């Protein structure tokens, strides 16, 4: 399957290019709806502003998108997959501190994702207000309806409409370039704006020109998505389509600029959006429909991207386990109800709070600058340690991109005022990831492992001891022990303590999350033939584990290969039912009252167990059927309270 996937990724066909166009360019491709409007704003129109703005957009797309993402970052593919977590999985062994930039990058990517659908859809729908007779139409309810329908249909998957995304985006990009070209022919002088000198003049000579970078940055906010969607399209398809996409985008940006310049020196743009103004009157309605469709596709990409991001975060232990569904048989297509609900609520709140795309422009982009800075930091490690590039070259690239991105960050800081409510959302995501990751680490440090080989004879003896009632034919424990001959102490306690659990075969199953995205392999070690068996299953971080299914498949393979005998044991229980029964034992931990914590540890661990309660149960997360699972509660003692002064009262006997 993995091989097949890579072959598809390497192939470049008209169909694969069309798929790439439909999946990855929604965000960056719909930026012309609002970028130039945001740059000019209510400033008087002049050559320095308009030419400088276009020059900034062009060079931003060149540096940030073409060089950083299309050329450099796409190199960091993790078995064909991209995105900040894939990058982290590639470099995490080179520094424990890399966790923080990863969490920060993922947090900010998710946070700004909430504003992408409302700003895009609102920008498109607001086009209606320039149609005669619709000048006063209320666009907010329309945006709310479109977004609500979009989020509602997520549960059914996108397999039926997905095939139309590519052609729809092809129509969109064709429209962008044709509309732009018409305007450029009226004012060919706009081509001069590609000269970087205009960008430099705008930033250094125009009053408060540097702060315009906050608006310019909107042109490249979708660049991170190119990397996140690497797995869907493949590097060559992305690189080839980008040439066409960038050309279409620049033609449209320059066309809009040409129209703005034609308004005359010192005139004002007012409430007009140059994107719609360059459309001929007869084309307005079809143009708005095409634009709205493109923004819906862009929103869809953002929603799917958020599911993938959270799913990867769960598999890399950055996020509590939550329900993940597969709406279709399509590989990799997932639907996460809780994320869907949060995103829907967030998007609706955004449009209700900001009311228009213009207000959203003033809040959009800040978080993405942080994501990009974090990606640069992780990418530097990849180039340095994995690709072993020259240190000076890597440092120079790091310096270049950090300078560019830090400038954008500073220019976007002013937006915090407009987006203060995001800080709560960002803090919530960041703290969830931070608490989950570090508390789990703390938790892991207190798990004691023992030599399974030492207990194997005792387990065999118990298995044959008929004086003890049989607990199950097959007893399966999920273990965290990576090595073949070890299990957790609590598992041994569970087998022998209280009522010993007698079974014919004891299985110890370990799920190992690999740094590769799509691995699904296993190995079997028989510690005692046919009675104590350890299974290690390697599961890629993009795969939702289905332990019971894997386990039963492994059993089938062992039986077919005559390595395991399921029915040979003579036992009273098989007289009426010859089928072997499987019982999974899941050991759930809870914080013991005997603990004594420092403030940080106390907050961290209590928050962790609270999140655990809110999230999915262990048996569901491991893909186990409830009927086959026994859940045992085990108290966790990290640091026992030691200074207890308990005095015995000596009662005098009354004579």
């Amino acid at each position: 399957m993995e091989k097949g996937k890579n072959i598809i990724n390497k192939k470049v066909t008209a169909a694969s290019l069309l798929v790439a166009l439909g999946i990855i360019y929604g965000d960056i491709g719909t930026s012309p709806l609002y970028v130039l409007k945001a740059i000019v704003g209510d400033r008087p129109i002049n050559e320095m502003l308009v030419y400088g703005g276009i020059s900034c957009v062009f060079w931003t797309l060149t540096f940030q998108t073409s060089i950083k993402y299309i050329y450099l970052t796409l190199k960091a593919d993790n078995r064909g997959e991209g995105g900040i977590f894939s990058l982290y999985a590639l470099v995490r062994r080179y520094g424990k501190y890399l966790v923080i930039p990863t969490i920060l990058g993922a947090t900010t990517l998710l946070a700004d994702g909430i504003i992408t659908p409302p700003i895009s859809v609102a920008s498109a729908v607001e086009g209606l207000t320039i149609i005669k007779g619709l000048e006063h139409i209320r666009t907010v309810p329309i945006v709310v309806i479109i977004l609500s329908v979009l989020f509602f249909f997520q549960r059914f998957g996108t397999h039926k409409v997905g095939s139309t995304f590519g052609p729809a985006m092809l129509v969109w990009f064709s429209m962008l370039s044709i509309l732009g070209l018409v305007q450029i022919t009226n004012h060919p002088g706009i081509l001069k704006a590609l000269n970087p000198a205009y960008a430099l003049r705008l930033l250094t000579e125009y009053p408060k020109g540097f702060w315009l970078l906050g608006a310019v940055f909107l042109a490249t906010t979708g660049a991170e998505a190119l990397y996140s969607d690497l797995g869907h399209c493949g590097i060559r398809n992305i690189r080839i389509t980008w040439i066409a996409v960038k050309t279409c985008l620049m033609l449209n940006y320059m066309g809009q600029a040409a129209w703005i310049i034609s308004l005359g020196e010192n005139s004002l743009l007012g409430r007009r959006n140059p994107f719609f103004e360059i459309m001929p009157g007869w084309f307005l309605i079809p143009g708005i429909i095409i634009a709205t469709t493109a923004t819906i596709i862009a929103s869809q990409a953002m929603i799917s991207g958020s599911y993938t991001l959270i799913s990867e975060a769960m598999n890399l232990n950055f996020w509590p386990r939550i329900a993940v569904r597969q709406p279709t048989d399509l590989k990799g297509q997932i639907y996460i109800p809780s994320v869907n609900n949060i995103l829907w609520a967030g998007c609706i709140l955004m449009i209700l709070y900001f009311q228009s795309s213009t207000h959203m422009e003033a809040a959009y982009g800040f978080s993405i600058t942080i994501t990009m800075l974090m990606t640069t930091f992780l990418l530097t490690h990849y180039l340095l340690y994995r690709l072993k590039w020259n240190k000076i070259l890597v440092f120079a690239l790091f310096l270049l991109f950090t300078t560019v991105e830090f400038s954008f960050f500073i220019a976007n800081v002013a937006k915090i005022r407009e987006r203060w409510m995001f800080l709560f959302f960002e803090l919530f995501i960041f703290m969830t990831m931070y608490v989950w990751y570090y508390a789990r680490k703390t938790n892991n440090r207190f798990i004691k492992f023992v030599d399974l080989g030492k207990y194997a004879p005792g387990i065999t003896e118990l298995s044959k001891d008929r004086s003890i009632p049989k607990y199950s034919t097959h007893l399966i424990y999920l273990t965290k022990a990576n090595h073949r001959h070890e299990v957790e102490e609590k598992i041994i306690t569970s087998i022998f303590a209280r009522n010993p659990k007698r079974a014919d075969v004891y299985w110890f199953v370990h799920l190992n999350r690999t740094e590769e995205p799509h691995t699904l392999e296993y190995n079997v070690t028989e510690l005692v033939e046919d009675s104590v068996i350890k299974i290690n299953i390697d599961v890629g971080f993009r795969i939702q584990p289905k332990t019971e299914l894997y386990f039963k498949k492994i059993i089938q393979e062992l039986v077919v290969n005559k390595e395991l005998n399921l029915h040979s044991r003579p036992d009273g229980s098989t007289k009426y039912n010859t089928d072997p029964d499987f019982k999974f034992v899941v050991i759930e931990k809870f914080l013991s009252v005997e603990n004594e914590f420092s403030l940080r540890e106390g907050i961290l661990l209590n928050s962790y167990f609270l999140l655990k309660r809110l999230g999915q149960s262990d048996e569901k997360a491991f893909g186990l059927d409830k009927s086959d699972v026994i859940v045992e509660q085990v108290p966790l003692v990290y640091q026992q309270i030691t200074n207890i002064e308990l005095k015995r009262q000596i009662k005098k006997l009354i004579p």
Partner: protein
Amino acid sequence: MEKDFSWVLHDKYFKLTNKNIEVILRNGRMVRGVIVGFFLSGDEGSDQSITKWHIVDEMDAINHGVDGLGKKKGEVIRQRDISEIHFQEDDSIMKF
């Protein structure tokens, strides 16, 4: 990547038949006994290393070195505190 010596000790120790060892700590103290368990660093996947070892007297090794009330017998020593280990089985010494 630095070699993780905790796993070198792990691999050698769990192949021994005579599991009695003498551990010399960096502060000069000596601990005698057998290893009944170990604790890993919090990292998951390939980054794990053994951070602590649970050592008990050979007589206390049953029930993985835990008494009837769940209290650990013996002592838990940190990998980084170990200076050297003397293995009784082959009379060899592993220095850290």
